[in-house]
């Protein structure tokens, strides 16, 4: 897989959140420090669904390591995790 930069990862994650929440991608506005789960009222199963899509899109098994769960704490944490694991 070609290495993605942070902006590309952010765009793809934003699209995944929009897909899971079934809202237009243009309605998603996130800063790195944002708790996206609270901001967009994602349920636990929304978060799992989103993470499955991340695994498929970026080609790594999200959640296999316990620290992966920390990636759900903020948009920036998730972007960093994806960048690190998908490398």
């Amino acid at each position, binding site marked *: 897989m070609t290495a993605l930069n942070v902006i590309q990862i952010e765009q793809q994650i934003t699209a995944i959140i929009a897909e899971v929440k079934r809202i237009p991608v243009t309605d998603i506005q996130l800063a790195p420090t944002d*708790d996206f789960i*609270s901001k967009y009222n994602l*349920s*636990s*199963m*929304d*978060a*799992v*669904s989103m*993470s*499955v899509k991340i695994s498929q899109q970026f080609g790594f*098994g*999200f*959640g*296999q390591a*316990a620290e*992966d*769960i920390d990636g*759900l704490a903020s948009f920036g944490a998730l972007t960093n995790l994806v960048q690190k694991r998908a490398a």
Partner: protein
Amino acid sequence: MITQLFLVTHVMNTAVNNAILSTQAVRKLGAIEMRMALFHANLNGSTQGTQAIFFSANVSSEQFMKAANYLYDHYEALQCTIRKVDEELWFYRSAVFSNIPVRHLQLETPADINTVISECLDQPIDPNKALWRAQLVSLGHTGQKVFLFSAHHAIIDANGMHDLANRFFQILSAVISNASLPRLQPINFPLAVDELLQQNASPVVVPTAEPRPHDKSCPINYRRTGWQFVTLKQEQIAALDKALQADNIKLHSLISAALCQALHAQGVVAAHCNFGTAVSLRFLQDTNPEYSNPLGCYMSIATTSLDINDNLVDFARKYDRELMHKIFTSCLNRVDTLYADFEAATHRIAQLENFSQDAGITNMGHVAITETYPGIEISDYLMLANRVSANFSIVAHCYDFLGTQRIGLVYPKPCLADDVVARVAADLEKRLLSYSQR
């Protein structure tokens, strides 16, 4: 004892009778379905679910039978049975409507409804004949009714129960209004969730904890399912939501953590315990519209191993993190189980005299059943499951409906004493209200 209970009708109206279905194999049961089937077969109906929907309407026996028959025609899963072929279990399309227990009861003493619900819950469905049954119960002569629908867990989960209830009331409303029946697209037999899971994985090793012995030993055939409810009203839910928002915790995690604390405080589980969380895998159908089907058993159990912490907020966060990790590492992976292995495992559970899996929770969220239809008004809802296997001491059944949050504590009697559960319920309610009033 039920007084003056009598059967109003048990005879099929020939006008709605079906041609006998040709026996035909549908598909082999998936791993989760097979587990449900063997729990059911070897543990006296364990895991079969019953929903009780209270409503007011003028409905005759014939109208009820007509609606139930139309429901049966609509869902292929309601036309199926389970058969053992060699060392495999298969769904067969061979359930004949006239052989399925669908009946109307007139209950002279409305308070006896709990006895009727109990019978629905604990009388095992015979999977050789059909995988469901239904009753309309008239409470006295007030127009108050209860629709009782019980089903084998191999074909349905909470999502399916709600879908089926909505369609039933839609049909019943048309029948009692003399309107034409709704044109419903047939719902084919669902795909096994296993087909949508990730690669095969090794069976998950359930973490160990010291299981608590039963309060009273009792052979499985003599056990009953008990239930007691903690009910939170709108203003209490509003206060709870406010505190949850401030702490950034989910309601599910708070209830689970408070339940573990209450169970430990009342001596039901040790400080280190196993806690099973039912996880809905329905979202896996989203990847392809052709998988979409409201029925089927699209669930898994995430078993977490918890050290109970006195700080409710910290404990709820820790539980949530542990749960998410378990979902990723176990629930989303396909595990093929051999029939013989699980057959033996369920027979072993029947002989145990301890709660080997401690406690658990199934959170159904909002009950998405429409409350009013022409001629019908729904007033209350109960969702229960047969728990006589006693692998769990208590399983909390959580859902909200009509602005009320229900936490049903469902347990095997007399393996767990009623008064112990009453103390757990009181303790749990106190913890939740105390948290909301900080």
